[in-house]
């Protein structure tokens, strides 16, 4: 029996490569200052979806909410075997916290036909692990978080092993389900050459527009618009168009999106500087070390 999988992915700043100027004064992230990558555990979610497709048939749709540049990870998903890619992008999405984000994404997922929704356990920029469970609540479907292994999929039921504190449990539930997938679950595949060939020109309308405007600064607005329209139609015919949805298309209630839809606000941001009060250099010699040990015993730090 085929299953339709919807996989939620996020483009994140590579927090391992963080540099000093990554924050704006208002406490938001200056994403431009950091390399942007495919959130690692979302690759595990995508891999799970692709394995389901290979085994049982069905489709894999990758969705992301983000800036136009997030089309990069949608292409990355197509290169790995996803069938369809959707970019949810809108200025009014800006400053969404997890509650607003899960609301917006729920509006998008509701437009799709799905059996299984997959997310990475958490994203490395916020490490909150909140959007998955919140999305499941908004879709009214069963969440299974911290999935470590997909064990069985049969008769409309799914069995997985998930992490619990200091151990694991094996659980079964009826579809539809939302899974959040950990990096234990599998080894994500690398892009396949045949899909790179097929999809290297896949683009979202906003990217098409930007490219055409850049290349045709001399043309008048009407002509530019025509070029954009034509190019989008060509891509669509070749099945190379990354779908692009805005909040209007999603019929989302603006009050629950962006800043107004986000109960959490930033009060303050501090960069981390930790320093010890009163420190000593210890000579790396037998007597230096011995004196230190003696001192620690005397003050009863070591018994």
């Amino acid at each position, binding site marked *: 029996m085929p299953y339709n999988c919807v996989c939620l992915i996020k483009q994140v700043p590579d927090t391992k490569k963080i540099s000093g100027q990554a924050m704006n004064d208002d406490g938001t992230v200056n994403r431009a200052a950091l390399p942007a990558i495919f959130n690692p555990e979302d690759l595990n979610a995508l891999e799970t979806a692709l394995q389901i497709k290979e085994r049982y048939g069905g489709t894999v749709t990758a969705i992301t909410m983000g800036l136009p540049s997030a089309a990069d990870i949608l292409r990355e998903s197509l290169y790995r075997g996803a069938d369809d890619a959707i970019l949810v992008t809108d200025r009014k999405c800006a400053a969404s916290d997890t509650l607003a984000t899960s609301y917006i994404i729920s509006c998008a997922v509701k437009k799709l036909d799905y059996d299984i929704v997959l997310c990475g356990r958490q994203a490395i920029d916020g490490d909150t692990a909140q959007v998955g469970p919140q999305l499941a609540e908004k879709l009214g479907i069963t969440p299974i*978080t911290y999935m470590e292994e997909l064990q069985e999929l049969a008769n409309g039921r799914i069995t997985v092993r998930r992490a619990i504190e200091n151990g694991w449990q*094996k659980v079964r539930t009826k579809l539809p389900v939302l899974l959040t997938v950990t990096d234990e679950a599998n080894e994500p595949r690398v892009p396949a050459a045949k899909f790179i060939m097929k999809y290297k020109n896949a683009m979202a309308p906003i990217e098409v527009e930007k490219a055409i405007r850049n290349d045709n600064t001399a043309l008048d607005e009407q002509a530019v618009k025509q070029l954009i329209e034509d190019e989008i139609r060509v891509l669509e015919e070749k099945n190379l168009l990354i779908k692009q949805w805005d909040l209007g298309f999603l019929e989302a209630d603006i009050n629950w999106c962006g800043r107004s839809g986000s109960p959490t606000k*930033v009060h303050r941001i501090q960069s981390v500087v930790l320093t010890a009060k009163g420190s000593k250099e210890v000579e790396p010699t*037998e007597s230096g070390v011995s004196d230190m040990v003696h001192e620690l015993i005397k003050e009863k730090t*070591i018994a």
Partner: protein
Amino acid sequence: MISVNRQGEVWVFAEQNEGKLADTPLELMSKARKLADKLGVKLAAVLMGDQVSELAERLVQYGADKVYLIEHHLLEHYQANTYAKTLHDLIHKYEPQVVLCGATINGRDLAPRVASSVKAGLTADCTDLQIGDHEVKATKEVHKNLLFQVRPAFGGNIIATIINYDRWPQMATVREGVMPMPEPDVSRKGQIVEEKATLTKEDLLVEILDQHTRPKKVDLKAARVIVAGGAGVGSKDNFRVIWDLANALGAAPAATRAAVDLGFIDKDHQVGQTGTTVRPSLYIAAGVSGAIQHQAGMSDSQKIIAINNDPDAPIFQIAHYKICGDLNDIVPKMIKAIKERI
């Protein structure tokens, strides 16, 4: 969503598994007690399960004024749906101003689901909680006595203070070990409030077919002295020097994530943002660079000894004793000195 309710209580979700209270809610009690006192409201623990009433007294001893006790056979095992539904209903009934949860796997499963259905804000993995005022810059409006939810963000590179002034309750999860465990006071008295859960079998969305837990290989949180080795130790074989020093001191052996990833030692020993948070009397770091994510788990140690052959290693910035040299030379000298003295 509930509106701002200044009389609302401070709540702690008292996670229990198999009839045993988890550590995190107990650790949270001391901080929650302070928050409630500052706000002049009651501190309540929310205890759910099947036949768990004997745990209620303990929550009082750890600082609760009140325990909401919800017993139901469908609450025997934690499940997102049944627990979230019950907590959701209780929040609507009593309108607490603050709801805190341990950032355990269950807490991180439950809290977002409840926040979503209640339409409240939630901050994950806080390392500190305080009460303070916030001025909205645009309107100059001042919101008094808010919950300041302090957490590392961006892979631990910054500390953000998050607030939530219009849609309550103010919800936060707190990582295990971040708050010190309070001493129970057996003479404390509190009120036990029994509540009913309205659940049917249809609410049990998931079947638990099998479950397996094992005790942690090491109890880092309880250790007075910790000896941590990093990637600089070089190999699993050479990690012996860390075990030897730990043995000489009666200390617990620990490691950085890099050392764990290299297979030098089991993940149970990892200290840091994605490992255990510790606050021992003495923390010895050998061959540890002192990445911010590692510091997040150990910078509250009372004394820190750093052994590193790179004089610019960041660990030296927070060390009380800085030993610049090769750990393979220094650690044996330490073991020798300890054996001579003790």
